[in-house]
């Protein structure tokens, strides 16, 4: 089956695989700055894949989408995050709540689940790159896992943004893009959200003297 695939499809699948790989890499990464770089790399791969889809299908809103991805996820957000890390003097180590090998094992399990769930669905699709749907789901889940297992607020944010990457992958590669207005809105939300988060970090640091989320466990019922 794979031999019959045209080049662009192979490319897209390749990019998708790279995104998944990067998601795993992020899950395994201990250092914050490197994590942000990996995130930027993931964004870049996403940009490439979107670009390929845009070129293939000729839908010009996908170009916009790709451009936005490049702008936001490869340049702006990593830059903001880098600045934050430096300004807030966050320690380089990311301390996971669960050790990394275990996390990786769970991650592999998640990928299997994601593929299994996506398989019957993607077979229904008429797009050739439908296989990426499973990868997108896996990326979303891995990002989710990262958010669960990391202690620092900033890694949670990276996980959150990485989840958006997974969603974008699904939106562009699996369905060849959502309607323009939707993508614009999503991008806007992500941007505003990131800015608000940035503001938040300063406030959190002011109040808690740290960005460790375990300081923020006071509101509870038990």
């Amino acid at each position, binding site marked *: 089956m794979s031999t019959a695939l045209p080049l662009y499809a192979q490319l897209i699948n390749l990019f998708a695989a790279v995104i998944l790989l990067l998601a795993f890499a992020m899950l395994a990464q201990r250092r914050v700055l490197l994590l942000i770089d990996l995130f930027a790399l993931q964004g870049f791969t996403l940009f490439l894949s979107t670009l390929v889809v845009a070129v293939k299908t000729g839908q010009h809103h996908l170009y916009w989408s790709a451009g936005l991805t490049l702008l936001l996820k490869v340049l702006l957000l990593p830059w903001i995050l880098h600045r934050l890390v430096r300004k807030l003097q966050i320690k380089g180590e990311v301390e996971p709540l669960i050790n990394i090998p275990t996390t990786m094992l769970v991650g592999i399990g998640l990928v299997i689940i994601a593929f299994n769930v996506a398989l019957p669905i993607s077979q*229904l699709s008429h797009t050739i790159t439908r296989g990426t749907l499973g990868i997108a789901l896996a990326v979303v889940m891995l990002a989710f896992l990262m*958010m669960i297992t990391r202690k620092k607020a900033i890694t949670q944010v990276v996980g959150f943004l990485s989840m958006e990457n997974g969603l974008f992958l699904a939106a562009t590669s699996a*369905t060849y893009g959502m*309607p323009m207005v939707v993508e614009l809105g999503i991008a806007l*939300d992500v941007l505003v959200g990131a800015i608000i988060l940035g503001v938040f970090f300063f406030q959190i640091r002011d109040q808690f003297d740290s960005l460790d989320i375990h300081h923020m466990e*006071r509101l509870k019922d038990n």
Partner: protein
Amino acid sequence: MLDMFVVMLAIPLVSGALLTVFGERAWAPNLNIIASGGTFLAAALLTVEIVTHGPRFAFGEQFFIDSLNIFFVTLTAFVGLTTSIFSGPYMKNEAAHGRLTIPRLRLYKSMYQLFMFTMLTALTTNNLGILWVAMEAATLTTVLLVSLYRTPASLEAAWKYFILCGVGIAQALFGTILLYFAAERVLGETGNALLWTYLVNAKAFLDPNIMALSFIFLLVGYGTKVGLAPLHNWLPDAHAEGPTPVSAVLSGLLLNVALYAILRCKVLADGAIDGNFAGNLMMGFGLFTLLLAAFFLSRQKDVKRMFAYSSIEHMGLITFAFGMGGAVANFAGLLHMTMHSLTKSAIFFAVGHATQKTGTQMMEDIRGLIRINPLIGWGLMLGTLAILGMPPFGVFASEFMILTHAMKYHPWATPVLLLALGVAFAAIFGKVQPMVFGETEAKRLPHAPAITPVFLHLAIVLMLGLYIPPYLTRWFQEAARMLG
């Protein structure tokens, strides 16, 4: 002729922008109220138009107003108006107590208007993508509102709110993408594949497998915002730590809007999938939420937190009702949403004033409200009794329909309902009664509280418990029919 729809959306957007700039002026609070009043007026006129002329589109086909969402729009605009009236003196008192600065008040007002805008957009849009965008935007605006006090607790609450709802909303987006994925096969790669009006016509042709997966993601995603257990964890924190008007609109409106999103998706899922797949899921979530929230209630110390759990409980009940489906249950669900919005916001108004009077949110320190201010005391007491489903208040009317309907079609669920309602009653009433009754030393507030909204809401709830006007009935029935 002026398009009331455009007016309705424009007023909060423009006034939000204005307030961002001029929010520190003396007339700013009044502008907030006037803008909300204008929104409500426009919504009311729009309602009249929809009722007389039937559903309509706006901005091409991107917006669509039918009997289902016009009902939510009116409710949202109304509660938005009363909350803004309430928040006038409330926020002044907060400022007088030194809990808020003038710039924060500006932020509050502008975000409030923008929040109204996002909710009205979410309610009226025909595009499920835009619905998602508006929901996310509503989250963002309310995150700023929740963290308004900038205390450690409020920041923590806002952070949790942001992350949990952000993740939730992200799942909803995945669900939306899957929906698009399914719709695209039927409707083609036009931009219409996310338009609800198209989807609903083609719903029978959507692939059931994809729709099932999509609905799961949408339910978990938007369900996080509704506060379905076990996705509810952000809700009590956000309600307790934000300013009380924000708690009122969160409980009274935002939860409704999120549930509205689920309902729109449920219609599509029901069309695509044989059997009551979506309904069963919702019933399961609803019951679980109801039961869990009831037990949570009995352990609360903070009054706003407790009523936040009460909102969760009622959302569970409403979700259960919609899960049962059918004309009666949907009717009851819609009615309950209305009643819950009105009652819960009234309670939060009363609670807000009460906490200002006593200077604490801890229930064991609040005593004898009926002595400090009989109106606040009675407002809280009656509101609590109403929310607990005591007739002749309207909440009972909907609970009556839900319970008897459940007894009829899902008798296995009734022990759970009975248990949860009983536990919730014991928990809430046992805590509110000593707050209202008993002895205490009084304290005067710098600004007289706005009691009118409390009793206005309660009066409406009382009236609807005894008499639902026929046009309202028709409207509800029409909406219930749309939900299948």
